[in-house]
């Protein structure tokens, strides 16, 4: 005990000054100065109000606020106050008040990648990724244009330029918005959540069954779309319903220059963002089309397609959880032969609390099954696990590193791969 007492005494005397330093006593002169400044501000404001006519109409004013909300402390005046500050503020206010149409805003996304795998026949190396430009322009209070253009490095040519989205939207109110153009098809979650902005998504790449250039679901859609909220109280229901050209030729493209057949495709998507569970979204989608394959097929080249999909996501980052499932049903119109292909993924991530919350480890499991009897798709089987880490260098740029372990066909060997990406928005 005799040994403990001096230790306790030393701890106490060591800690006490530290507390004292962390919250010094308020200087009275400083308080008076701040109060005087506050009085001057209030006097100035009173003078302004006296010169203006009182606002008409029954409005709730400061007088209606309970006494507990009355001033009790004086906020410090903003730094840099003075004539220059007021002029800058006045200019900012004027800019905010002025509305110009059209008001074009451009934002870009880009990424640079590196990959290396032990798969035979592949080479390791860097990849330019996509350069993506997004355009948003209000044409009036209720009409807006959105566009997305990508520049893609190609092995056989220098670059290709693609119009990914081009949409003009008319808003009636929150319950009905009508748009025309080329979209990312509202099937499931990922396809309309991240578009071509790699920086927005946690992982380096999209899930395989929604990848760009893939055929499992029609990633793009050309036609019209109605969307909006559904009055549903706390259920937070919303919808998208669209009619368009459907799959073109090749089936990965949406028939930009015209439909390949006389049949229109349609899509319906219903999702819920419950008010009580902020961050949760769950939904279901259906897509119906007639596919016409080019060339002569032994059993006919027309197929009916039904896609049904469901998703559930928790978009907060502690943790983040995304899961989607899709079933693609194809029926040969001539023979009535039916095939079903399924794909799903589940992804979980967690924003770590350290290092200013810049680190986010994640894991994704993906599975795609296409039966051997499938008549429209080539084989897309996949079993894949991805473990990775995202590091946000700034608010607008990130580094990502991933290890992937996957195989396509049951007879294929497992492949190990390391993938790295830096992506950004500008």
């Amino acid at each position, binding site marked *: 005990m005799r040994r403990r007492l001096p230790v306790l005494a030393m701890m106490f005397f060591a800690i006490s000054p530290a507390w004292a330093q962390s919250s010094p006593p308020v200087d009275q002169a400083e308080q008076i100065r701040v109060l005087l400044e506050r009085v001057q501000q209030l006097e100035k404001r009173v003078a302004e*109000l006296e010169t203006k006519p009182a606002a008409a109409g029954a409005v709730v004013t400061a007088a209606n606020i309970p006494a507990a*909300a009355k001033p009790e402390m004086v906020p410090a005046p903003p730094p840099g106050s003075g004539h220059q500050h007021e002029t800058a503020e006045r200019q900012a206010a004027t800019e905010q008040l002025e509305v110009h149409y059209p008001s074009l805003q451009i934002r870009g996304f880009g990424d640079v990648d590196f990959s290396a795998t032990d798969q035979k026949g592949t080479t390791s190396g860097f990849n330019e990724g996509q350069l993506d430009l997004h355009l948003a322009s209000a044409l009036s209070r209720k009409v807006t244009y959105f566009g997305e253009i990508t520049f893609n490095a190609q092995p056989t040519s220098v670059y290709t330029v693609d119009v990914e989205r081009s949409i003009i939207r008319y808003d009636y*109110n929150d319950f009905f918005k009508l748009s025309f153009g080329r979209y990312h098809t509202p099937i499931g979650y990922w396809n309309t*959540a991240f578009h071509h902005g790699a920086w927005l998504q946690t992982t380096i790449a999209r899930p395989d069954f929604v990848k760009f250039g893939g055929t499992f679901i029609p990633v793009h859609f050309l036609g019209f779309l109605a969307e909006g909220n559904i009055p549903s109280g706390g259920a937070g229901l919303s919808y998208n319903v669209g009619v368009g050209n459907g799959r073109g030729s090749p089936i990965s493209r949406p028939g930009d220059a015209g439909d390949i057949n006389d049949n229109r495709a349609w899509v319906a998507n219903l999702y819920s963002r419950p008010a009580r569970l902020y961050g949760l979204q769950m939904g279901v989608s259906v897509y119906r089309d007639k596919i016409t394959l080019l060339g002569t097929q032994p059993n006919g080249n027309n197929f009916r397609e039904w896609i049904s999909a469901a998703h559930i996501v928790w978009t907060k980052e502690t943790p983040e959880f995304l899961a989607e499932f899709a079933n693609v049903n194809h029926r040969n119109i001539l023979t009535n032969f039916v095939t079903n292909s399924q794909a799903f993924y589940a992804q979980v991530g967690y924003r770590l609390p350290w290092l200013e919350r810049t680190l986010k480890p994640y894991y994704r499991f993906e599975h795609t099954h296409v039966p051997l009897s499938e008549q429209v798709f080539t084989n897309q089987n996949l079993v894949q696990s991805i473990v990775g880490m995202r590091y946000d260098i700034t608010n607008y740029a990130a580094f990502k590193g991933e290890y992937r372990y996957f195989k396509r066909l049951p007879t294929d060997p497992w492949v190990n791969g390391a993938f790295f990406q830096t992506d950004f928005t500008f």
Partner: protein
Amino acid sequence: MNATNKRIVTFLWTILWASLALQSPSTAQTRGADIAVVVNADTPVTDLSLSEVRKVLLGERQYWNSKLPVVLLIRAPEARERDVVLRVIYQMSEAQFKQYWVAKIFRAEAATPPRIVYSNDMQYELLTALPGSIAFVDSRNIRAGVKVLRVDGHLPGEKDYPLR
């Protein structure tokens, strides 16, 4: 441990806890004023639930009615009003908030981000001039000519008011 040592230990612990109690500021001292939800006086709304305020701020509700769009005004970083809005309503960090609006526009769900205001004066100027505008104001600085909304049935200063 003899009686003298016990008394010394008790004394030191008493001093230690008393120091802690004196050093830690009281709740009333640290708690800032409530943040009022104020709208342009002509906006046809008087009462919103916290989840409805959240829908407005998230850009999921963009119209007060079919003729009147919502105009979101948010204080610039470092303002206490912004801190409370991000913490209580958005439940996001500054970085997440910025990313949210980049994504929102990228998804074609909104044409513009919230308008940034740098002071109370600027905020009131825009609030009175822009129909459908909504802003978040320290309840000690409320001025005439705008409408203060009840949130979950409470006005700023009332016991269960959620924005503080």
